[in-house]
């Protein structure tokens, strides 16, 4: 049997183990929920992870273009990029797959015929990891973009620049201090 056949045979065991390992990166109570709640709308994180790793695993076995895995990786990384993980913590799940596969292959009597393929597969998993670093960074950058866009779409800021907004002045401030006079003049100008 070649590696692909062995892994296809052990597909469900590997996926189960991989899922469990990922879920264990969450607190115990959360892990129980992520495992047991099967409704994909009630448990979108668990559902996305389990669906995502299935797709990733199948694509890996197919051995095609690594870029095809990107959307599945994206779904998972996008979630972990906003959860309370460090960047490395968010992405270790990719590396975990190597360990899971090795453990599952322990029982194989004769490993010689699959070893070469295994090394190749592991290097593909490394490629996946690199890809997910990119996705992770894109997600974090996106958050900054969103923050910036939001500030822009709140015309508030523009109006404030045009001095159309009357901020609550500190009460210590004299009612007609130089500052206030200036603001009032500008406001009049802006209103014209």
């Amino acid at each position, binding site marked *: 049997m070649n590696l692909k056949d062995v892994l296809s045979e052990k597909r469900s065991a590997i996926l189960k183990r991989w899922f469990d*390992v990922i879920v*264990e*990166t*969450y*607190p*115990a*109570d*959360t892990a129980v*929920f*992520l495992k047991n*709640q099967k*409704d*994909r*709308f*009630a*448990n*979108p*994180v668990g559902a*996305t992870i389990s669906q995502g790793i299935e797709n990733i695993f199948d694509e890996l076995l197919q051995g095609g273009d690594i870029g095809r895995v990107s959307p599945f990786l994206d779904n998972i990384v*996008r*979630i972990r990029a*906003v*959860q*309370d*993980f*460090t960047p*490395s*913590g968010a992405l*270790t*799940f990719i*590396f*975990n797959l190597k*360990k899971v596969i090795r453990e599952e292959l322990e029982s194989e009597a004769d490993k010689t015929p699959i070893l070469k393929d295994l090394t190749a597969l592991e290097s593909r998993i490394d490629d996946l990891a690199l890809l997910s670093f990119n996705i992770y960074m894109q*997600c974090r950058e*996106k*958050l900054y*973009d*969103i*923050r910036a*866009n*939001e*500030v822009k*779409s*709140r*015309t*508030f800021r523009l*109006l404030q620049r045009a001095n*159309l*907004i*009357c*901020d*609550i*002045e*500190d*009460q210590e401030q004299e009612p007609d201090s130089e500052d206030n006079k200036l603001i009032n003049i500008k406001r009049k100008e802006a*209103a014209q």
Partner: protein
Amino acid sequence: MATKLPKPDELAKIDFTPPETGWMDTPVEIKPGMFCWGAKAKNLRAVEFPNARDWSPAEEDWKLPGEWEGTVLEAMADRLSKYRSFKLFMDICVRCGACADKCHFFIGSGDPKNMPVLRAELMRSVYRKYFTTPGKVLGKLAGARELTYDVLKEWWYYFYQCTECRRCSVFCPYGIDTAEITMMGREFTNLLGLNTDWIAGPVANCYMKGNHLGLEPHTIKSSIEFFLDDIETVTGIKIEPTFNRKGAEILFVTPSGDLFADPGTYTAMGYLMLFHELGLDYTWSTYASEGGNFGYFTSNEMAKRLNSKIYAEAKRLGVKWIIGGECGHMWRVLNQYMDTWNGPADFLEVPKSPITGTVFENAKSTKMVHITEFTADLIKNGKLKLDPSRNDHLKVTYHDSCNTARGMGLLEEPRYVIKSVCNNFYEMPENTIREQTFCCGSGTGLNASENMDLRMKGGFPRANAVKYVRDKHGVNMLANICAIDRATLKASMEYWVPDVTVCGTHELVANALVMKGEKERTQDLRLETLPGKEGN
């Protein structure tokens, strides 16, 4: 030799796997991206809130007033005696866990302290210590703990990770409403000056100027005038609304977000066009220029104070009744509290549509009608000429705002309106809509920018359901009836489902509305060319 590097699977667990100690003894860690900035002194001072000072939640020292424990416990004793429901909610939870996995913040973040039962337990544990005999005697054995600085910080952190959406209460066999516990938590921390600036700023502005942004009458007026130009471009019709007009039949009040933040602005254009087409005898007010009420996210008292301007303005102008625009929490306040706080508004009449003659019995005591009820009634009576095909390039789904859906049962009217003006409508899965709707993730004044990580986590369950209908039916428009939704779902979609746009319901109405004397429509309200009209 350098220190040993942690292995990948050790690294993965560093920040998330719970420490060995139980939840009670694990001090909270205030994480960036998860909280809003502390309130500025000037904003607290403007409304005479206690302990006005500049402070930062990220710093060790929160600059609390002396004797702060006493202040909180006294307030707690007071509310326990005043509000029976609060006392009940402190006592009766059997920790069955039915609510545990129903909160969008828990589902999205995976942080167990976001389970509603545990969120409530943060306060219950203190309640037990000071207000129950077993708690006093047995302490931790009875699930009781002292109110320490760390506990207070934990309260603050987690009560500002609850949007008071009430989804959890739908599943509790005892009807325990964690939202009310959060409200209490915010009220108590409020007494120590632990407000966020995102809430305190709008509260101060609203108190001084009548709206969240602190805009003065001429600015309100000129903003609406900007819309009129766009409406004229799209329809060829010049609309001339009135402001502060005494003797108008109807006063119209809407969240100011509709006037200044996209895409709410298009919804505001929708109101203007609809009312113009009807020839409605109505007026805008530049004083009651805010339907929203961020005071509701601080204390009962403040909410009441900010709300009072609505009836006061109705009285000053001598209108007969009030229409309210598309908003979420505004309606919770109006529907649930306005009448008792600032009513009875017996100087007003029971709302009656001048177009259809329908009497809105449901608004008999508040005298205020939700715009989707008003519009649904118009459509039902065939009073609007509509061309839904103008929205044919849209595949629309509808997000129930927590407040209108769970808070006031407004489920059918918005759907009826949308389906009348759009040919392609698709519901999201059943356990994510109507009474079970998932919060946008940023309600109750959590829609700041600095807490974006929190907002994205909390918004994920809703976004996940949108993604599903996008994949299944090609949905590209997420309609709603809440000004905060319009702003926050936009951000959430940008992150989770980038090809879905967000709109208010009256934007869709106005795009389909065939107006008397209009020119052929080639653009929608966003000034985007309508499909098939490219050559025009």
